[in-house]
């Protein structure tokens, strides 16, 4: 019981309330799951990314998130018999799968739109620069072998067959530090 409600954010919430944040954290954790030795959206801080973005750049989406989370809760109760955070991991995943199917079958339905928005923001928070509050320890970039904010690549690095995980990953912050030392 209460598997998802153990969420204790290590950052200040700027828009979501704690229960909303816990629900988002559970959802994003099923979109990009965590595995042994391979972090997912939760370890990447995707919930912090979304909360921070909603208090700033994406503030126009605040009502969409409020309404979407309310409808999502109702959907969980309707399809799985309990509020989302009271479901176990398998049941939570089943709700996401059902929502994914609904989103494909009825693309204009609001709940499906909301799901696609959360999914988009999950990807943004997982693969965006860490400066935005997600992709902590560049776990998203490590997963796929993306070297991040490189100043450039040498002709040697551009040769076929180069293993990009051998290139040290850089962030926007690293590049600003580099400019500062120029």
């Amino acid at each position, binding site marked *: 019981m209460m598997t998802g409600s153990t969420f204790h954010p290590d950052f200040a919430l700027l828009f979501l309330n704690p229960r909303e944040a816990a629900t988002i954290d559970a959802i994003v954790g099923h979109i990009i799951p965590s595995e042994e030795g391979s972090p997912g959206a939760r370890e990447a801080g995707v919930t912090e990314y979304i909360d921070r973005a909603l208090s700033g750049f994406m503030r126009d989406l605040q009502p969409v998130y409020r309404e979407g989370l309310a409808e999502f809760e109702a959907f969980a109760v309707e399809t799985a018999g309990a509020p989302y955070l009271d479901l176990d991991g398998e049941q939570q995943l089943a709700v*996401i799968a059902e929502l994914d199917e609904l989103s494909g079958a009825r693309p204009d339905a609001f709940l499906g739109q909301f799901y696609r*928005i959360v999914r988009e923001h999950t990807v943004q928070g997982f693969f965006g620069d860490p400066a935005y509050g997600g992709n902590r320890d560049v776990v998203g970039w490590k997963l*796929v072998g993306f070297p991040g904010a490189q100043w*450039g690549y*040498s002709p040697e690095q551009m040769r076929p*067959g*180069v293993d990009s995980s051998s290139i040290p990953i850089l962030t926007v912050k690293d*590049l600003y530090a580099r400019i500062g030392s120029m």
Partner: protein
Amino acid sequence: MRAEYDAIIVGMGSAGGIIAEQLTKAGAHVLALEKGPDYTQEDFMVKQDELRYYQRGAIVAGVNVDPVTWRPNESSTARVLPWSAGALGTDEPLYGLPSIGTGGGTLHWGCAAYRFREADFRMRSAIAERFGEAALPEGSSLADWPISYADLEPYYERVEQEQGLSGRAGNVGGVLQEGGNPFDPPRERDYPMPPVAQGPGDVPWVAATERLGLHPFRQPLAINSEEYRGRPACVNCGFCHGFPCHVKAKSTTQVTSVPAAKATGNLELRARSRVLRINRSPDGREVRGVTYVDALGETHDVFSNTVVLTAYALENVRLMLISGINANGQVGQHFMTHNFGWFTSVLPEVTNPFMGTFNASSAIDDYTSELVPDNDLGVLWGSPIISVTGDLQPIEAYHNMNPGVAKFGLEFKHWMRDKYRHMHRMYSQTTNFPYARHYADLDPVVKDRWGQPALRITHDWEDHDANSVTLMGRYKERIAKEMGATEYWMDSPRPPYHLSTHDVGVHRMGLDPATSVTNVHGEVHECRGLFAVGGGQFVSYGGYNPNQTVQALAYLSAEGLLASNGLRLASSTSMVA
């Protein structure tokens, strides 16, 4: 500050920057009004940020500021097209208007720099000769251009030398060049620079197309492959299409023509200045200046007998329509835009698709324009097939991923983990014919924040568009199989976008004032001294990227302006404090 200028240029982008340089160097006093910022290199020192530029569209105007509405036909209600990451944050930012600010669309572009082919300028005649008059698409207003390739060739040449292009010519003075495109039209000189570094994913594509007997060539790009005119070579950062350049290797008028115009001392550039309307003489036959609003919301009238609109095809049209300039009903007609036909493969090899520029790759012209093979789909005019090997960050890769793979859970995560570094893309912009039912006018309901009507696009993909995507898709599929692709997929032949930064044709050039908007120098037939320059002048639209032709037309217009009957110098040259 002057009371009256020799010329006012609206928009300091791809064409406007070039015209500003040419006029100021000849001694004309020019006022440039740019609705975006006057960027400096300081703005772009660290731009390696996919969220900021690609997903959030930091240098494009955005739907809140520059709404454009779209409807498929006259019986439906137009809605605001989402862009700049979209109304709900889930759309591609570049299916909208180009970037704004000094440099305009050349700030964000992928820098593919193609000359149109000789036959592209006489598309209507060439189709009629090969397939018969009856084969011409029903209801199409397709026409030949009033100029030929040979007329434009010297101006293409100027773009290549002055703006700085890299590549390898295929045909210099009628002699085929080793390693170049054997289907190239003849040209006077090779590009001033060799091609940029090749992306790793292009190597298997070139090998596969060669095995199939096709003729791959390195794409001509407006990117420095070596130091050129004081600007350095590309460093292959892989944040290019949709991004500004941090080292000035990309050819944008922000680093080429605008600084040159400023250096003359004859350019007064007012940034964050949005033109609201064009002002004319009481009888409407001559231009007198424009009214613009500044960043603080104050409006100003400025005066000149020469006004040049270089604010992008669609904004040129909006300004003319808002100002009541459309006596023959041609302004906004003949709307054409590209359908890209994206085709993505997963290759056995590592492609490292994030390295180097979008177009650090090759293309084939074996099926382009008049070279299109006879086919069962009724495709009359072909397109290049372009290999795209760089500039693919992870979020964009997610947008491009195999539609057959789940976008949640371990299946999704593992696909990104295992396939991202093996992705390869192809596209071919398909020929888009003009039709009376495809046009731009003013939206009767939607207005921008200054109370000006939004532009409304009425457009839908026609059978020829969809069939072109399908036909080129077959050729791409052969190449993908030859590369040994383990999976591949392609876009819908009728994609959801109807704007792409490749929108053209809406203020057509022509010799007959009854059926066109401008003459070959861009002067608007019905209003002396008013010029509308750029892709809006295109008469037909094949499969090549538009910008080199936009810039060639800018050089041509500048020459016309500087000829004795073009630029009408200000009557008062006295300086006003």
